[in-house]
């Protein structure tokens, strides 16, 4: 599973999953902090739809952490102030880079979590569809 998909599942889903996976790694391997969780900014670049040019809408507060595991560096970044989550994401990222055997076993858990996220999102959307207008044309 690529990093984009993995980080989306871990951040949008139940954060217990990231905690569980990171705990598995830290209990068995030596994980060193390179950058302890810290707050910083990400500048958001957008494309406007009038002339399709680029501009900056503003900055977003993020928490970032970096760890080293088996000479591989893992990075965790998450919107908001979430120090534990940032470190857990960094540990998981390092585990994938180091190709730890544990990562093979995570695939199923991640896929199940992805299904749950999709189900929850589609439920949320269906509920929002209740506010969709059903126009009736009047005879004048």
């Amino acid at each position, binding site marked *: 599973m*690529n*990093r*984009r998909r993995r*980080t*989306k599942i871990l*951040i*949008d889903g139940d954060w217990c999953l990231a905690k569980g996976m990171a705990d598995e790694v830290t209990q068995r391997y030596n994980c060193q902090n390179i950058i302890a969780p810290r*707050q*910083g*900014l*990400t*500048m*958001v*670049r*957008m*494309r*406007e*739809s*009038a*002339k*399709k*040019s*680029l*501009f*900056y*809408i*503003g*900055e*977003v*507060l*993020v928490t*970032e952490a970096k760890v080293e595991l088996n000479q591989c560096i893992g*990075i965790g*970044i*998450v*919107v*908001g*102030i979430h120090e534990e989550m940032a470190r857990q994401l960094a540990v998981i990222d390092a585990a994938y880079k180091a190709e730890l055997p544990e990562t093979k076993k995570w695939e199923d858990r991640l896929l199940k979590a992805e299904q749950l996220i*999709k189900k929850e*999102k*589609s*439920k949320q*959307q*269906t*509920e*929002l*569809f*209740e*506010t*969709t*207008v059903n*126009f009736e044309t009047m005879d004048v």
Partner: protein
Amino acid sequence: MGYVAVKGGTKAIEASKKRLKYERLKDGEIIEIKTILSSMKALVDQVMSEASFYSPFLAALAIKQAEGSMEEAVFLMRAHRSTLPRLYYSQTVETESMFVKRRISASFKDIPGGQMLGATYDYTHRLLDFELAKENTVDNHQWLQAYKQELQDVSREDDIQYFPKVVDYLREEGLFEEYEDDNTSPMDITKESIQFPTPRSARLQTLTRGQTGAVTSLGYASLRGYGQVHPTVGEVRVGDLPIYVDHPTENNENAEDNDFYIGEITVSEVESFVPVSIKNDRHDEELEFEIGYGVCYGQNETKAIAMSILDQCLEHPEFDFPTHSEEFVLLHIDSVESTGFISHLKLPHYVTFQSKLDSIRQVKKGATSNES
């Protein structure tokens, strides 16, 4: 009388700060950050937008610290933002990827995907609800349970829908000009001072972080005749946008495989359709539509619509109208700059004022001696 340069006041300032804290605490009530976050979303959104700094938690903290003063809260957020390192730039965010929570059009009744009202005050009676004065958590819980029960019966869709833009259909019909993606690096007004004429990226960045009231007032002024733009809103959408950043060191040839998803932000986006007269090849006047663009953090549709008007105004400079002057608009809509400059007037100006008084006294004295 000579100049009256003074120093001192340290004790009074300390006492004033204590008084400020006393005024905030004296009634013995504490408002929790979580209460602000869940019950004052519009205020939180406005602070984030004007601060150009997305963090609901910090915005709520700023509102608490500023006791609800918008200008103070925005100032606090801007000041805090300046203490943080900029770690990343996001990949380009395209609003087609928005998880839409509200989407309407004033131009077309039938838009693909339908008009979804979402949560809005637009159709509420503007009458004070005195029931809220005696609201309690038990009743609220019961209401929530009943509402969730009602939604249980709603038939479920399996796939999540992402909505195309209304304007894309009109472009397909050839009614609006098509543009290729313009990937010119945007200017960042937090790194470079704006110079006139400004690039479009600087205008949009300045407008999106403008003070809501100022942006709205100038947009309104344009509608009332102090400008030449009166649009029809093509689409308003509010929803969540996913943010991705590239890996800082890895080869990003397969960016989509290697990038990081870091979370979502909520934005309001508006495309306004503005009729303009152009001359065709035969030099006849012809009507065409252009698009004014507005977007801002959080749900703040009025600001986004006003921004779309001003965007279009500034695309067409007109000497006769202040709302079409980028210098007039862009240099006066920033919350920290305008409130800061106005409020500095109350700070000591003893030396400069005494100097002016001296000048007037000299003039008066001169006039009197001339008369005699």
